[in-house]
């Protein structure tokens, strides 16, 4: 079914006998779901005047709120050779995502309302997903001067961040946080000590050392995380910590929460799946930031998710053209193409009983929606349909041909992951149908 800007396909459909999992509404029932004129009309009987464009047998399938992805690069403007808003939101829809945040490392950087507006406009035209830009907290992400935070907020930036780029000094960082707190702007942190991470391309452990690759020690993350948490405490800014990679980081977040700090944290789905053992073949698809760490870190991240210390799972999607990865490990660009594998790659831990079903759904829907304070991540009667039909018994086969993203840099190429996205409806429109 074609979905286009001019004639958006409004969904009129019925999904019979489907298990609706909506932690936000405390709902977990098998029922018939009627979606009419793009709204969730009824969970029981056919509404008046309903004529289904098609009816699906939902037996054995799960109807989930559309996933909300906190970090996904769309590469536009400026890096269209890696991906475009059109191609990457289309890929996100295929991954069951209805809302996504895009970080500010575009060209130019999202540090002006113009860039923020451009991205939202293009995303709206494409119509595959809600795109919520994350603005830069300093001008051009250079870490020297504050960006026009209020203007960015007005222009639709859902949060502000410095990404992993260094800030000139702690005083500038403090000023950034104070200023953001003034306007109740959420700050997304990717805590990293620049000096300890300098030139590093892999976890500063045994494997990097033995392979002769410059390492990034876990302390590059934890030292910066400690500092950031203390500054958050001092300024009272609304803070979220993205892409934790080490066990000690999970402890630090847990401690901060225990002393009453209202912070949240997320983890990338791929950090749950890999350790730094994978760098032993110098395979550049495993060049990611933060780097894969060791097995105890990986386990701690899954446990942190299950215990609720980490509330959310994101894709940290980063599509690349083939040439960006076709070089010796250290000179390749970091990141993987991962919007399309967000659900199945994290669902494997549900399958293996490491993660509860409810936790998993919340981490992808309700929790990020609440963090962003957006009307998403739930399936409520009368609300716009933002849903994903998921087959827990299906399998997703990942091949370069199947991936809709322009980036084919998936670590799961030629492999299968459990679970499959069958259908995605974004704002009542069918954005993906497998």
């Amino acid at each position, binding site marked *: 079914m074609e979905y286009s800007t001019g004639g958006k396909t409004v969904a009129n459909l019925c999904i019979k006998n489907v298990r609706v999992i909506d932690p936000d509404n405390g709902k977990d029932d098998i029922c018939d779901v009627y979606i009419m004129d793009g709204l969730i009309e009824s969970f029981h009987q056919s509404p008046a005047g309903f004529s289904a464009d098609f009816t699906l047998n939902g037996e054995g399938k799960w109807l989930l709120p559309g996933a909300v992805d906190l970090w996904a690069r769309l590469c536009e403007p400026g890096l269209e050779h890696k991906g475009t808003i059109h191609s990457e939101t289309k890929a996100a829809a295929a991954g069951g995502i209805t809302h996504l945040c895009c970080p500010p490392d575009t060209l130019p950087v999202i540090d002006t309302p113009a860039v923020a507006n451009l991205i939202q406009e293009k995303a709206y035209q494409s119509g595959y997903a809600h795109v919520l830009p994350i603005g830069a907290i300093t001008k051009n992400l250079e870490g020297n001067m504050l960006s026009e935070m209020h203007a960015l907020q007005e222009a639709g930036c859902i949060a502000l961040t410095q990404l992993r780029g260094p800030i000139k000094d702690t005083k500038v960082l403090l000023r950034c946080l104070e200023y953001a707190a003034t306007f109740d702007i959420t700050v997304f942190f990717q805590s990293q000590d620049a000096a300890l991470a300098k030139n590093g391309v892999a976890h500063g*452990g*045994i*494997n990097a*050392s*033995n*392979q*002769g*690759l*410059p390492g990034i020690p876990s302390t590059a993350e934890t030292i910066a995380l400690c500092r950031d948490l203390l500054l958050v405490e001092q300024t009272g800014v609304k803070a979220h910590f993205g892409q934790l990679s080490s066990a000690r980081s999970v402890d630090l977040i847990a401690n901060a929460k225990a002393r009453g700090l209202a912070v949240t944290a997320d983890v990338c789905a791929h950090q749950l*799946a*890999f*350790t730094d*053992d*994978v*760098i*032993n*073949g*110098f*395979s*550049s698809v495993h060049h990611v930031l933060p780097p894969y760490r060791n*097995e105890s870190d*990986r386990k701690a991240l899954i446990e942190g998710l299950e215990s609720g210390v980490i509330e959310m799972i994101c894709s940290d999607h980063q599509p690349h053209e083939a*040439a960006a990865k*076709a*070089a*010796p*490990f*250290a*000179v390749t660009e970091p990141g993987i193409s991962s919007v399309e594998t967000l659900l199945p790659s994290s669902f*494997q831990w549900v399958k293996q009983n490491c993660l509860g079903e409810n936790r998993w759904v919340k981490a992808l829907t309700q929790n990020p929606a609440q963090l962003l304070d957006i009307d998403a991540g739930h399936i409520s009667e009368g609300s716009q349909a933002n849903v994903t039909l998921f087959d827990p018994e299906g399998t997703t086969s990942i091949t370069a041909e199947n991936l809709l993203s322009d980036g084919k840099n998936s*670590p799961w190429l030629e*492999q299968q992951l459990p679970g499959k996205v069958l259908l995605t409806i974004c704002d009542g429109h069918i954005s993906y149908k497998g």
Partner: protein
Amino acid sequence: MTLAPANPAHQLQLTEDGQLKHFLTTEGLSKSILTEILDRAESFVGIEKQAVKKVPLLRGKTVVNLFFEASTRTRTTFELAAKRLSADVLNINISQSATSKGESLMDMLWNLEAMASDMFIVRHQNSGAPHFIAEHVTPHVAVINAGDGRHAHPTQAMLDMYTIRKHKGAFENLSVAIVGDITHSRVARSQVHALRGLGTEDIRVIGPKTLVPSSMETLGAKIYHNMEQGLSDVDVVIMLRLQKERMNSGLLPSEHEFYRLYGLTEEKLAFCKPDAIVMHPGPINRGVEIETSVADGPQSVILKQVNYGIAVRMAVLSMAMSGQASAAGLSDTTEGVE
């Protein structure tokens, strides 16, 4: 569901029946392959006695010296080795800036392959670069690692193994100490792998914590921070070259302090066995790593090491070429009467 590494270097360099077809690392090589390299080198040493110091093994083959990092000494040794095997040799020195000017490594490889190259000898500043090239060259092209980043320098390590065997006979009951900047040394890593493969149990690495990564223990080496303990009763001492820039990056306070603690003086040499040999991959910083009287002394085999370099490289080049022939399915093990 963690993913196993797809192609560790030590698998990529072997044919299905376990012969060498690239030479990327000494890691994971069996004792029989390592010994074969040494034996083969032994047979090439004799060629120096010939009036024509050449054998026609690689006649008609094109060997490309692909050096992304300047090294006259290593390049010359490889060049001579290839020429003594009768190959045609092409030397290409690529400064870092040239590759960053748009021509990617892949493009360059394809261009060179179009010239019907049979072998690439690669020196690169990035760890894993020869591995990357080996994964992407067309089949039948052999890749020899002439040093990559901090990862490996397998031919230098094999030359050191040759030297050790020449003086000590076997590897099994030896104690070998490697002293200095292990962290940044591709030679040290390759030496440890080779020594392990050849059966040496007692491998020691000596230096301050800034220069000796704790991961060396996982490779089977014991870590010492003190020369008296580390050198106690060893048969072989390998001194590594100390780069001047280590002082600027805060890894060491001064050359003077390093020499005082870890420089090999006659006094410290006395901790070793009386017949211990002293090695150094060169070039030597006299008075930084090693005392002149030790470097030139009776226990030093530093100059002899250089002599074996060509034979060891001839061995590796011919074995990799032979492995490529066998990987191509041309191998026929039945021998006629001749």
